[in-house]
């Protein structure tokens, strides 16, 4: 993927949806930043490995809440970026006092606990370790953000369950360089800090995890011999002139390759040879050559003859009783590599690079991607037991339910009515909000001004604050009197910015509005829902509030409720501040 352009990947990905069928693999990406560009890249990665992907992105900054809805997913990936935490603060993080530091750290650790608890039955979870390298730091003094990252990562390592993989984000960033990994500009405008370069590298980093959990790991590496395991051609140069010595300039690369093969063999990978040579000559080298590292006891199968390599590899596949798609084939010859690519496309091929010093790294990249080198079950069980003990002790005082967690945030809602100075922002909200939007009516500033000034319309807007910051004006409800019936009003617009979804704020807001309507002697409220591609999540919002469905077509629903029948949701932990009689 590194070599392909983003637009090429998008096109290839699209085409593969028709070709790759089979059991769908459900992936969810949860984040507190904008990483939606990862969706197609992730789909492509899965497609290339012949997996049928269904990738969904969670709601913005709803990691904790979304983690409660992942029970049907095969893989959940979590991007928890500290930029978001920093942005919510009102003073430069380096000056944070001890009390606030501890408070922030505990809040994040609690969120991690809840998320891991919610995701405990998933087959695999990928959590990106916290990183500080993208912030400006001293090179000789640990900054507060670096300390926080260190504390949080230590916590992650301590409590993480077996099925959670922690990704070393800083390692990935350092591979491409901070300036190539981070996009300050899009971070500033859209909270989208990661570049395509970073995301592509990231997917390369987690690909082995996906392969491991979808049964796509390989089982065997089959090597050619001449100029693959040693320098030179045995049949032409003779046994004395081929070079695989650990000390010679030419030989040492090949020596290293053989060491890698031995290492793999000891870990259960099947190593084999497939070479066009006299069998006797190669056996002689394996048994008698002083520099040979990959000796017979590490080799599971040999096909040394003058037949074509496709036939040989087919025999290897059947004799080892493994699928062709479990084999990696390494050869220096373009002819052989292309033959196998054409005849046996299920086999993964690796051509020895012309720049020979690149050979070991190329081989290792394949190795780390396609084989599971770690995971000694006994050791992992011991560590797991120790960790569970620790978690049991420390979990007692922690928040387990989402309600408890939300309570701890000290959420407060400020409600304004008909405030003229908010008109630009209100109009903007109607134009930009797509998901939590019941009717998706787009208004200009002039239209909002008319609503605000009219005696028959009421414009309620809300801003939300919590322990860590203020979200600004993020919710809107426009109520219009029914001119034919003075006791009836209709909800023309009800929307919330995705920044404040998932905290039950909509219920506190409606509770307040309905109380106000009752105070004003209204009796009936009508409302509508218009279906769009984006607002599926609020399809049943009015049903949840107890409205009666008068009319239900596929694309819209019409509701009504008698205010005397309305049962308050009473969200205890949200404080409501009313600002009704302000200066405009």
């Amino acid at each position, binding site marked *: 993927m590194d070599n392909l*352009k*983003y*637009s*090429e990947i*998008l*096109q290839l990905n*699209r085409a593969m949806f028709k070709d790759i069928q089979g059991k769908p693999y459900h992936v969810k990406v949860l984040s507190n930043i*904008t990483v*939606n*560009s990862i969706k*197609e890249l992730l789909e492509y990665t899965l497609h290339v490995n012949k997996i049928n992907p269904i990738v969904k992105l969670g709601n913005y900054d709803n990691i904790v809440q979304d983690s409660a809805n992942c029970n049907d997913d095969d893989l959940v990936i979590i991007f928890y970026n500290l930029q978001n935490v920093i942005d919510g603060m009102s003073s430069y993080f380096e000056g944070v006092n001890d009390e606030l530091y501890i408070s922030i750290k505990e809040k994040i650790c609690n969120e991690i606990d809840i998320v891991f608890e919610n995701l405990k039955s998933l087959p695999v979870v990928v959590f990106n370790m916290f990183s500080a390298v993208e912030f400006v730091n001293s090179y000789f003094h640990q900054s507060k953000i670096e300390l926080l990252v260190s504390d949080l990562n230590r916590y992650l390592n301590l409590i993480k369950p077996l099925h959670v993989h922690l990704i070393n984000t800083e390692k990935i960033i350092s591979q491409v360089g901070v300036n190539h990994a981070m996009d300050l*500009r*899009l971070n*500033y*405008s*859209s909270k*989208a800090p990661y*570049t*395509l370069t970073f995301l592509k590298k990231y997917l390369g980093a987690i690909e082995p995890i996906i392969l491991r959990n979808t049964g796509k790991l390989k089982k065997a590496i089959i090597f050619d011999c001449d100029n693959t395991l040693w320098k030179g051609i045995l049949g032409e140069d003779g046994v004395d002139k081929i070079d695989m010595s650990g000390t010679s300039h030419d030989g040492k690369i090949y020596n290293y390759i053989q060491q890698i093969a031995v290492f793999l063999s000891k870990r259960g990978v099947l190593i084999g040879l497939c070479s066009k040579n006299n069998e006797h000559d190669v056996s002689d080298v394996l048994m008698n050559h002083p520099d040979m590292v990959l000796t017979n006891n590490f080799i599971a199968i040999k096909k040394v003859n003058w037949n074509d390599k496709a036939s040989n590899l087919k025999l290897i596949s059947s004799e080892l009783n493994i699928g062709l798609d479990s084999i990696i084939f390494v050869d220096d010859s373009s002819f052989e590599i292309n033959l196998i690519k054409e005849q046996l496309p299920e086999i993964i091929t690796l051509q020895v690079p012309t720049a020979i010093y690149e050979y070991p790294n190329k081989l290792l990249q394949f190795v780390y991607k396609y084989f599971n080198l770690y995971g000694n079950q006994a050791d992992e069980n011991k560590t797991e037991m120790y960790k569970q003990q620790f978690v049991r002790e420390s979990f007692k005082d922690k928040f387990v339910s989402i309600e408890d967690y939300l309570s701890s945030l000290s959420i407060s809602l400020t409600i304004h009515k008909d405030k003229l100075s908010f008109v630009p922002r209100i109009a903007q909200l109607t134009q*930009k909000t*797509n998901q939590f939007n019941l009717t998706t009516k787009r208004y200009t500033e002039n239209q909002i001004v008319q609503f605000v000034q009219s005696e028959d319309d009421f414009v309620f807007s809300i801003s939300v604050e919590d322990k860590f910051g203020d979200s600004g004006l993020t919710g809107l409800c426009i109520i219009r009197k029914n001119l034919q019936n003075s006791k009836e009003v209709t909800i023309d617009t009800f929307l919330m910015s995705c920044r404040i979804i998932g905290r039950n704020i909509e219920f506190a807001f409606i509770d307040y509005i309905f109380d106000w309507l009752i105070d004003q002697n209204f009796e009936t409220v009508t409302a509508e829902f218009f279906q769009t591609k*984006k607002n599926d999540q609020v399809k049943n919002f009015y049903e949840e509030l107890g409205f009666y469905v008068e009319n239900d077509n596929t694309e819209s629903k019409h509701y009504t409720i008698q205010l005397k029948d309305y049962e308050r949701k009473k969200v205890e932990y949200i404080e409501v501040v009313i600002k009704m009689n302000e200066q405009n």
Partner: protein
Amino acid sequence: MVDVSTEIKNVMSAVFEVPVEQITEDSSADTIDAWDSLKHLNLILALEEEFDISIPDEEVGNLFNYKLIELIVNECRK
């Protein structure tokens, strides 16, 4: 050597998942259904990669139709 106009249309076709024939000089966020703020980010990233340019912050929010895109891309390529 493909010309800039064709390349831009290819990129837009890939990002919005519409056939390239449907991308015209008059195409804009109003005529292309899939063109929302999230896909807009993808478009910016794709254009920058394709032409090896960096689009200034203040322009990013303006690139909501084909004509402006062509203008800015050519500007940035100088």
